[in-house]
């Protein structure tokens, strides 16, 4: 059986605190195929970013992987020693963070930061690395790159800086890029450009993208498949067309109801009443049941498993079993 | 009735708080708190527990001078830690000396706090030219070490006051000079936090309902900027005690008739070469222990109130 690019199996992430252990991510599984754009969506605190950090091995203490396995190209990576994992970061898996303003070292020119990263992963001379950096800057749409390469981050605008960040994430041709809310900190007018750029570049290079966001609009626009997370659990996963148009889980339905659309005439955007539970107050059974209009007895007691429906996989007692 | 319940609630909240939790978790901090408390109690009750009264010249006998500690063959149990060159019992003098050190420390720290916090609030809340002038003064002053400022103030006081008056007022001159040399830290911190707080909604709400400026500053903003002030005050206490000891050691502090720990060390240093080490070492150890304990408390408080650093 051909293995996927990335496989995550029953990943669990926990925090040890003085008030006991908090389960932030609770046994989620998914895989990402070569060249695919995979979206992970959910409210803040749902565990999306933690999942991304866990894959690249950068969970910050006291957070830790408590269970599960992560495979890259069929090779298990969640237990690798630090040095080996470091060689994977940037080389096989690139990462883009939320805030381009703070992602770049203010005291180094962008050229130095690019060249440093390229030389870490690729067997090139300094001159070749600079050539490659220039090419990357051109690709991400920085005008006059031969001049800009020697500029410092503060001399760039927010959108331009995020382009530099993308160039940095892609500079060793990784096979997967994890983009954690890459446009949240940017002006709305620039968000679309950055998303389009990311999509185009990854298509050209055949790079898979794991796009973490709370913005359903962005998901609908560029993703191939999407996973919906709620309170550290995966509630629905499937092709984007299905999840967006025919969401099965009541939570996904709520999320999709909140996307404004130009085509459909909807009188009012729907909203989900209530708030996601805090990690120390996750209810028994289905975590969503206190906010769910359809909840019944079983939802309060038993936790639903992901089951295959005609369109997506969904964890809800309304479907099957 | 409500007041009592409020108090109980406050106490319960305190013992349930993260602050108390992190306090009980750190054995070193608990020990430091106990040591500090012991020093404070010893200082308050010095007249009751000290075996002799070192400030009473009539009770001194020069024949007792340079008695070594009790465990030496020449020592006596009457003077557990030995005596100094005047025949003063060292243990009693250390107890009384800690009293002076702690008093000057607390008083000057409080003085610095009141001045610094008030000016910081005014500077941060009102801003404009007042702020500019105050902060310029602070800038200039902070570039001079506190000890130098304290020495200058002390020197000026000596120039202005007649010798007799100066002797009598020496302790208050110390409190003033140490206090005035330390207000800047309070003022800067409070100013910074005030500038953040004053744009928050509760302040604007208070302004909208027509509260006066002083009310807003001292009743609404002040409680919200007290966290860092507490940290600075604790570390400031240690610094003030050290400054007092240093000034006294240098001979510009309290008069030698009422020796503080620093004065004792100054006196003792002359006899170090003759082998009478105890006159330096015991007061030195007491001073170092006290300052170390207060510093440990300050360090802990800073980490506990600044969750980012944990």
């Amino acid at each position: 059986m051909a293995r996927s690019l990335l496989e995550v199996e029953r990943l669990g992430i926990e925090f040890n605190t003085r008030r006991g252990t908090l389960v932030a991510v609770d046994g989620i599984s998914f895989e990402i195929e070569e060249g695919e754009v995979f979206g992970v969506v959910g409210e803040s605190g749902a565990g999306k970013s933690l999942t991304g950090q866990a894959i690249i091995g950068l969970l910050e203490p006291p957070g830790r992987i408590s269970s599960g396995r992560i495979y890259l190209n069929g090779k298990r990576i969640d237990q690798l020693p630090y040095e080996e994992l470091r060689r994977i970061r940037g080389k096989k898996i690139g990462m883009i963070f939320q805030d381009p303003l703070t992602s770049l070292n203010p005291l180094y020119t962008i050229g130095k930061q690019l060249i440093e990263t390229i030389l870490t992963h690729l067997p090139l001379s300094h001159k070749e690395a600079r050539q490659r950096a220039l090419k990357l800057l051109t690709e991400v749409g920085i005008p006059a790159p031969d001049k800009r390469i020697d500029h410092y981050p503060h001399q760039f605008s927010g959108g331009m800086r995020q382009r530099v960040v993308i160039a940095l994430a892609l500079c060793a041709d990784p096979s997967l890029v994890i983009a954690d809310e890459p446009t949240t900190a940017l002006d709305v007018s620039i968000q679309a450009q950055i998303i389009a750029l990311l999509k185009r570049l990854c298509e050209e290079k055949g790079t898979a993208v794991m796009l973490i966001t709370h913005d359903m609009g962005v998901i609908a626009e560029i993703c191939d498949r999407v996973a919906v997370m709620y309170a550290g659990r995966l509630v629905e996963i499937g092709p984007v067309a299905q999840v967006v148009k025919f969401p099965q889980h009541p939570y996904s339905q709520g999320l999709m109801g909140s996307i404004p659309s130009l085509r459909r005439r909807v009188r009012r955007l729907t909203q989900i009443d209530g708030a996601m539970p805090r990690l120390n107050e996750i209810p028994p059974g289905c975590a969503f049941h206190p906010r769910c209009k359809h909840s019944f007895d079983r939802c309060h007691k038993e936790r639903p498993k992901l089951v295959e429906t005609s369109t997506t996989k969904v964890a809800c007692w309304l479907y099957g079993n | 009735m409500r007041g009592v319940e409020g108090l109980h609630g406050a106490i319960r909240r305190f013992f349930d708080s993260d602050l108390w939790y992190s306090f009980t978790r750190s054995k070193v901090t608990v020990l430091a708190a106990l040591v500090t408390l012991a020093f404070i109690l010893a200082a308050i009750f010095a007249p009751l527990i000290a075996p002799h009264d070192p400030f009473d010249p009539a009770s001194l006998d020069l024949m007792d001078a340079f008695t070594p500690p009790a465990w030496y063959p020449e020592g006596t149990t009457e003077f557990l830690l030995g005596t100094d060159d005047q025949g003063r019992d060292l243990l009693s003098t250390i107890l009384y000396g800690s009293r002076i050190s702690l008093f000057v420390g607390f008083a000057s720290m409080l003085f610095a706090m009141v001045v610094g916090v008030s000016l910081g609030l005014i500077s941060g809340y009102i801003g404009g030219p007042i702020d500019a002038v105050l902060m310029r003064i602070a800038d200039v002053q902070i570039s001079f070490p506190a000890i130098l400022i304290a020495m200058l103030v002390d020197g000026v006081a000596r120039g202005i006051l007649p010798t007799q008056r100066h002797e009598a007022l020496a302790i208050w001159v110390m409190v003033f000079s140490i206090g005035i040399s330390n207000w800047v830290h309070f003022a800067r911190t409070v100013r910074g936090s005030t500038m953040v707080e004053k744009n928050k909604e509760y302040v604007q709400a208070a302004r909208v309902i027509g509260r006066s400026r002083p009310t807003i500053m001292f009743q609404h903003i002040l409680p919200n900027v007290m966290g860092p002030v507490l940290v600075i005050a604790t570390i400031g206490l240690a610094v003030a005690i050290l400054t007092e000891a240093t000034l006294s050691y240098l001979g510009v502090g309290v008069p030698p008739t009422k020796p503080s720990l620093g004065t004792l060390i100054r006196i003792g240093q002359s006899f170090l070469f003759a082998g009478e080490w105890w006159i330096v070492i015991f007061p030195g150890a007491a001073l170092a222990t006290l300052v170390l304990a207060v510093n440990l408390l300050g360090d802990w408080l800073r980490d506990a109130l600044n969750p980012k650093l944990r």
Partner: protein
Amino acid sequence: MIALIIRRLFQSFVVMLAVALVAFSLFRYVGDPVSQMVGQETSIADRERLREELGLNDPIIVQFSRFVLNSLQGKFGISFRLGRPVKELIAERLPATLELSLVAALFSLAVGIPMGVYTGLYPHRYLSKFFQAISLIGISLPTFLIGILLILIFGVILGWLPTFGRGEVVKLGWWSTGLLTVSGWKAIIMPAFTLGMFQLTLIMRLVRSEMMEVLRADFIKFARARGLSNRAINFGHALKNTLVPVITITGLQLGSIIAFAIITETVFQWPGMGLLFLQSIQFADIPVMSTYLILIAFFFVLINMIVDILYHIVDPRLRAEGAVV
């Protein structure tokens, strides 16, 4: 860069003027300069003539200008206590203080920065905890006590090092240096260690907390996510970013070393300016006090300027055209 230097020069000028005003007020209003200079038996008429000669009856602004002009020419008046020109007294003692401060500063930087970096990078290692403990003791033990303990151990008990003075000095023009003789070096070890110890702990704690702060920054996280080596992250990205605040505070600290030298000089009877200042306080010798104040302020202003310039070399954000400083 030039604009910066000019602006800084102007600011320094204002600070110096303010300090001069304080020194002048000391000089003019604390005690009566005339009665300090003459004996009890001088007649009132003589005193009045002296007042006139000294210009003490001129308008204050004239007196102040004269004070500033005189100070610029090095005419700082005559010590009440020693009856010699303050300029001479200071010139004799300046080299001792500056050499001591310099050696102490180098020592505290050379040891404090590596210790701070280490404890910042590896806060949970035993060696870090040991350094932390040392630093806490370092700020809790008063400087003079450290000095006395050193004297007791290395001077009295072991007899290895001299307990007071500068040892043999060599004259280089008007400058007398102890750094060219073996006994001079022996004599400076304990005082420099004592003086540097407090600064060392401050520098170590500062570097440590800045290092820990920077290591939490987003750009460090991003650097890790790019797979850069720990070496490049810790000693390149992180260390360089801690430099800016470290330079500032270290600069200020080094300035205060000269003032803290007062204590060390007293403990070791080091014949420097600090000892002179201390004696002048005990005798309310105002001309020496105000001159010392002006001199210290001058060193501060000088150090501050150097710090600012270093700042601009390290941080490109400040170098940018039109950047607000």
